[in-house]
């Protein structure tokens, strides 16, 4: 009993290290692809795909400056917290046909909570750096968090509720269950439209969660010179850039789990290790497509919004789209 318990713990620890490492590497790699694609769309050559790795290693050997006005332990702790929590969310994510590492311990509601922590980490870091720019950035990040939570939760709840109607016996908020039962197969035509609306909602929430244009008001380069991150340098900034890369993977994975959890291994009648590998590769391709749509494409196609416009956008139009999607799914279920 104790031996099996120990073994399980060991597997979990090794798994955690592997997932953390892969999450960071894939995150940085996709960041490089994102930058390259954005550059090509803007008629530029763009940096090489390995640029984010080079940036990271360069930042690691740079001096880490803590400003005089900063509160050092919070200032240094915020990037670590942001990165750790971003990676932790990955442990709850099913990847392809691989079950999440912390299977059975947490569900999508926990993820909705965990997703706020990187943002809070950045807010805390911004407030503690003692710079007016970072201060304004932190205020904006808080306002933005309050704005996008409602549409985000609407999406999650809608899908959970639909699953609970279809499979009352299952633990419907568990990501494994959601991953195994794609929403599109459960709904009628009305619900299908509703699900598309929910997907749009999540696609609009993602850039805000990642502080990307048009919702990058907290970091706005031309206004706040980097906002939240203005005082960060060296190792701390490197950790924030890792956290950003991992968060991108997390948000794209969330979209995949909620809307596109399909696997292709059974099409090739594969099983065992090959099936896992094929599904993993398919998952990575899906990840790339989702990142392209939700991050790269949106950020080259629009201008930055002001913070009041961001709040309005989330509270009124995006919330309405999300609630409409929820209502359509409910209607669909009731009518059928």
């Amino acid at each position, binding site marked *: 009993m104790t031996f099996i318990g120990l073994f399980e713990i060991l597997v979990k620890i090794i798994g955690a290290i592997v997932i953390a490492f892969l999450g960071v590497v894939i995150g940085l790699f996709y960041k490089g692809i994102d930058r390259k694609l954005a550059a090509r769309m803007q008629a530029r050559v763009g940096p090489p795909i390995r640029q984010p790795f080079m940036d990271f290693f360069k930042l690691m050997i740079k001096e880490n400056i803590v400003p005089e006005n900063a509160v050092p332990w919070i200032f240094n702790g915020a990037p670590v917290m942001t990165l750790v929590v971003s990676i932790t969310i990955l442990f709850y994510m099913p990847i392809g046909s691989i079950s999440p590492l912390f299977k059975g311990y947490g569900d999508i509601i926990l993820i909705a909570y965990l997703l706020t922590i990187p943002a809070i980490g950045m807010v805390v870091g911004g407030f503690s750096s003692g710079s007016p720019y970072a201060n304004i950035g932190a205020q904006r990040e808080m306002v933005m968090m309050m704005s996008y939570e409602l549409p985000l939760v609407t999406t999650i709840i809608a899908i959970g509720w639909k699953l609970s109607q279809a499979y009352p016996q299952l633990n419907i908020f568990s990501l494994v269950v959601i991953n195994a039962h794609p929403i599109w197969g459960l709904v009628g035509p009305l619900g299908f439209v509703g699900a598309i609306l929910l997907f749009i909602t999540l696609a609009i929430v993602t850039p805000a969660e990642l502080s990307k244009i048009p919702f990058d*008001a907290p970091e706005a380069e031309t206004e706040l010179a980097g906002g939240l991150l203005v005082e960060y340098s060296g190792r701390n900034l490197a950790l924030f850039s890792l956290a950003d890369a991992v968060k991108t993977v997390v948000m794209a994975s969330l979209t995949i789990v909620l809307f596109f959890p399909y696997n292709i291994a059974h099409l090739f009648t594969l099983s065992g290790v090959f099936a896992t590998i094929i599904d993993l590769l398919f998952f990575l391709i899906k990840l790339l497509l989702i990142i392209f749509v939700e991050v790269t494409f949106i950020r080259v196609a629009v*201008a930055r919004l002001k913070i009041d416009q961001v709040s309005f956008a989330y509270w009124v139009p995006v919330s309405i789209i999300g609630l409409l999607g929820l209502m359509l799914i409910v209607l669909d279920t009731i009518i059928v």
Partner: protein
Amino acid sequence: MSKMTYSIPIGPVHPSLKEPMTFNFEIYGERIEKVNLAPGDNHRGIEFMGMQRNPVQIIYLAERICGICSASHPFAFCKAVENAAGIEVPERAQYIRVIIAELERIHSHILWAGVAAHELGFDSVLYISWRAREEVLDLLEYLTGNRINYGIFMIGGVRRDITEDQIPRIRKTLEYYKDIYGKIEDIFLKDPTIALRTKNVGVLTKEDALRLCAVGPTARASGVKKDIRQDQPYSAYADLNVKAITPDVLTGEVNGDVYDRIVVRLLELVQSLEIVEQCLDNLPSGEIIAEKKLVKLLNQLKRAKGRGVGRHEAPRGECIHYIKLNESELPEVWKARAPTYNNLMAWVPMLLGQQIADIPIVIASIDPCIACMDRVTILNKDNGQKNILTKKDLHELSVQKTRRITP
């Protein structure tokens, strides 16, 4: 309830500023309550340098006052010297000057459009518009030998002719811009996010524009029909019947906001294309310079006595050069006044009550050229501190100076 404001400095070095300049803002939440401008970070003593050189050398110095206005400053300066020394410029040179000045306007306005898009966080438009700008820079290089500092202006004319076989190349560029103009207009005037960020932002009323003596597109966007090319036509403009452009031509109303400034600049782009085309159609033949021999010209300038004022409608507004020649090799006074100097104070009414997020685009909306504008920095020699002079002090100093130079 008392308002808790806090202050944030923008500048001297800040990503939203392309040149050094300091702003101190009093902010309440996200709203700007008070604006304090502190220019003087980019003063290079260029007028003093000029007064150690002969007028022909100053042309090249004037060109380097600012990289973008490198046709406007020498244009105004040459006009000032010609005015002072009574030199008549041949007609063909007048036309070539106007062609270069209008090509410069095209490149300056497209450059501005790119910068404005960058300030809005719309980098794609920055890259696309700057790519479109390359065409006119290539043309300028083809005509003058340089992309930026053209070195084509000369007292009494121009240094290079536009030959018959160069004209098709110019027309090709004009066609290129006519082709892509629709796209540029589409991007800037139809894009919903740009409209969201620029409409009713940084409003300058007509009254304020008149009171603060705003010039150029900044004034025209507020409905002031002011353009030297229209009001006091000079060079080839006298033959061309240029009209000042206000935004109501396109949109039917004048709001004086950032959006209107975009509209005015885009319309001026078309206007410049038309002017260049007309100049090419009517290009007279003849000499391109009044006095070919440089030594003779310098001798003539050395003997000249008098004052001259040269005015030119630069892309940013009216650019004035004043020169006083006093029978010596060096000019006694050289004074340059760039358009940004006038538009500076217009920032205050534009920025008050706006949000922090509007600062970059409102600052960029007058197309500031700090290098052109920074002419004065007053330092107290004893303690090295900067003094702030009020209007009264400046008046006092002016009176003293007048007494000193007119005994």
